């Protein structure tokens, strides 16, 4: 199963993860 997030954010939004990284519920994905 997969979850796709689509969202609008300011252009200075930065992802704080890398491709292939394991993540857990509540872990930071990105911030403005």
């Amino acid at each position: 199963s997969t979850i796709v997030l689509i969202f609008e954010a300011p252009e200075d939004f930065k992802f704080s993860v890398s491709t292939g990284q394991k993540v857990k519920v509540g872990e930071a994905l990105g911030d403005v």
Partner: protein
Amino acid sequence: LANAWKDTPTKWYPLPVFVGALVLTALQYRRRVTEREVHVDENGQEVVRLKGPWQVHVLGALPLRNMSRLWGTVNSMELPVWFRPIGFRLYAWAFGCNIDEADQDDLTQYVSLGDFFYRKLKDGVRPVADTVLVSPADGRMLHFGAITDGRVEQIKGSTYSLDALLGIERPNSPKPTSVAFAARDMAEVDDRTFADINGIEYSLRDFLGTSTPPSPAASGTSTPTADAHDRARAGGLPAPNAKKHGEQIDASVSPDGPLADVVAHEASVAAEMGAQPFLDRARGMSRYAVKPGHGLYFAVIYLAPGDYHRFHSPTAWVVEKRRHFVGDLFSVSPWMVKRLENLFVLNERVALLGRWKYGFFGMVPVGATNVGSIKINFDQALRTNVGARRPPPTGTYSEAVYTAASPILRGQPLTKAEEMGGFCLG
């Protein structure tokens, strides 16, 4: 022939330049033609078709939906009590589950593999980060980035349409009547007053404790005015936005009863979101109207069979509607993602659409062969992976609007990391 093969020396020489130029031109022409090859229906909507190598077409010929339901039925069978700890430990070992995190220490309490698969976690084992966006699930980041020209990148060089994924109509296509987002809504919401649970009207801005015009910089904490406090108390409402980011509003000032809880919950979400989204709710719903200085982003998280399979809210937001797309149930493993174009548009999925502090927010749980059933906790009417003689054509969806879920936010409010639903076996 043998002598010629052995003895003839290899002699390299350059091709004439015009041959190379001809080949490059042909390749370029072929690429452009392929890029333009988008099938559309009579309404101008893109028709998504199965495209990929032969393995994909072989899989496409299988009755995946029936197989998925059979898999679910088998896994919902009650297991003998003596076998449960052995079986679940074996499963955990094979798929890398951390049983210590499960809320049930006694594995005999899980009656079937499906029950174990949908296990809850102990409180506190997943700390929530203090960022605007957190992971909604345990899994692996497959891909993320910015969306350009309405196309979401599945893998490098392969994209799918955002319109097809979410069911957003093109500007010139006829809109279904249930889609009520228009510029008109923005004007209405801008200075609207709401009747609260006691019939006393109050302004949205007062409720949220914002000045006029609202500051775009409002991010989770805003300063309530004395007037707003008084009015909220007079109307039996919780003090507007009185606490800091992430804290619960003090519900002691609100009347007893379930409705009071709903209002308190809404206020909590509103406090996290800030006031801005309410004034921009219509603009946020379409990629054609992203605010200046903003962009659209995507993130794809893959849940492996051993992962915790419930999902949580990735931010504080309001879900306004859900669109259930009945589709195929291909595997969504990274192997398949690399091979099957438009995988996420072909598969059965539930698009939850709404808004957060920066505008549009959407979350799309996508089903797969082994986990075809998607549950949404606040939507008891939703039924996924249901058998039908003839499934509807790809791209069609049924829609539910959550406007009645809350009197103020006009949608289903969710706080960050709040459990939303999950994937079930079959």
